[in-house]
């Protein structure tokens, strides 16, 4: 290397480093402003910037459903949404579900209570996503049978295999809390 020419090699010219911007998200009814880069996903914004760690990062590729949140009432994968794109949407996470409507005396959303009642989890990692997904499913109103619930929960993977109890819990809320459906 020492006998190479003494010319100085410049760093390759790169595009101007993109700026961060201030994005105001409405999360669980509260407006929260954060300075983020455009490549920050909604999932990372929630967990790393807003300390809302209830929403889980599983695969980070939209395959497992652990990051499911509600945006304008619709369930989506927060890992595939850019935070900067949802600044004017209503975002609801597991922490804010009770603000969606009536809570049980324990301060839980009926779907949370049903998951406990039916022992619908083991390790619990997928549970916030399962519950948000189930709330979205009942709002959508397309599940008319147990088989429909199974099919329409296919975007949420549970590695502990608590599926039968998860379906029981959702069926229970669907049948006994029609106002939530």
């Amino acid at each position, binding site marked *: 290397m020492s006998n190479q020419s003494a010319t100085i090699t410049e760093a390759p010219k790169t595009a101007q480093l993109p700026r961060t911007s201030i994005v105001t998200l409405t999360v669980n009814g509260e407006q929260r402003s954060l300075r983020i880069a455009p490549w920050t*996903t909604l999932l990372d914004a929630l967990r790393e910037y807003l300390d809302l760690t209830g929403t889980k990062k599983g695969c980070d590729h939209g395959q497992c459903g652990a990051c499911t949140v509600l945006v304008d009432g619709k369930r989506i994968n927060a890992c595939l949404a850019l935070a900067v794109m949802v600044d004017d949407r209503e975002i609801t996470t597991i922490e804010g579900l009770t603000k969606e409507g009536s809570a049980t005396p324990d301060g839980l959303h009926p779907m949370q209570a049903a998951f406990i009642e039916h022992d619908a989890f083991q390790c619990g990692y997928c549970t916030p996503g399962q519950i948000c997904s189930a709330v979205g499913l009942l709002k959508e109103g397309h599940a008319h049978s147990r088989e429909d619930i199974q099919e329409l929960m296919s975007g949420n993977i549970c590695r502990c295999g608590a599926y039968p109890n998860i379906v029981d819990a959702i069926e229970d809320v669907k049948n006994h809390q029609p106002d939530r459906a």
Partner: protein
Amino acid sequence: MNPFTYSRAGDLDEAVREISDNDRAKFIAGGTNLVDLMKANVMHPTHLVDITRLGLSAIEETEEGGLRLGSLVTNAETAYHPQVAERYPLLANAILAGASPQLRNMATNGGNLLQRTRCYYFYDTATPCNKREPGSGCSALNGHNRIHAILGTSEHCIATHPSDMCVALAALEAVVRVTNRYGERAIPFADFHRLPGDTPHIDANLEPDEIITAVELPPRGFSQHFKYLKIRDRASYAFALVSVAVGLEMEGDTIREARLALGGVAHKPWRNLEAEALLVGNPANRETFKRAADRIVADARGYGSNSFKIELARRAVVRALNEAAK
């Protein structure tokens, strides 16, 4: 993900202008495929133009009596739209056979058409792939190719198009409406996606500076006799090994009109007009169905792990036709 800049287009003109001015810019709407590919370092645009506020989010009747699906309508909104469910159940069923509810709530109709293949080698940046890196070679030809194409392949690429929705749109003979800086144009669905040939890095006949504004469905929806049959490795939330979209018009037991498209077998939704012609005017029975299926797979070629798809496709066509004719 690589660093990128972001802008939000306020109207169609602005969106087209932004994309025309920057050859490393991409549109983003649902983001379900693009963000994933950016995380995998397969795609690395330096600028994203957010098109989600452009409108283009209506489903409305066309003057010809068909239905215009805005390109920004989500897959879920499309599948559950009363007019789609009633008049185009083949399309509704195909959409609901794909992805998961969360993804269908995000993914748009325009984006569904433009999603990239799920070939393992396309995603694995450590391996050669002509689609990802033109000229680098195809790892699937002699690699793991269980999910790969059996029809319309080339020595450069045996990837499949992953969409279910597009298989139904091919059978329905939809039209893709696009806008560029010079105006609008319409692309018949059969001409929208491409075969790999020696340019497998180009998926569709859409120029980089064009935007899809709508997908138009012709009046005929085959709502009486239709079937979307999807065969996959698990019952839900998996890509098709083989799928078949069928639309028939029957007169008694005789087939008067037939549309047939296959998914999971080629670089684009696969139609064989000769096979469709073999159905028309003939009785809806097993012999007729087998003749059409045999015609389709006569051109097929297996690459080892995916050779089972030839017989699978043949049987799937017969079964889908049988169920559609009922």
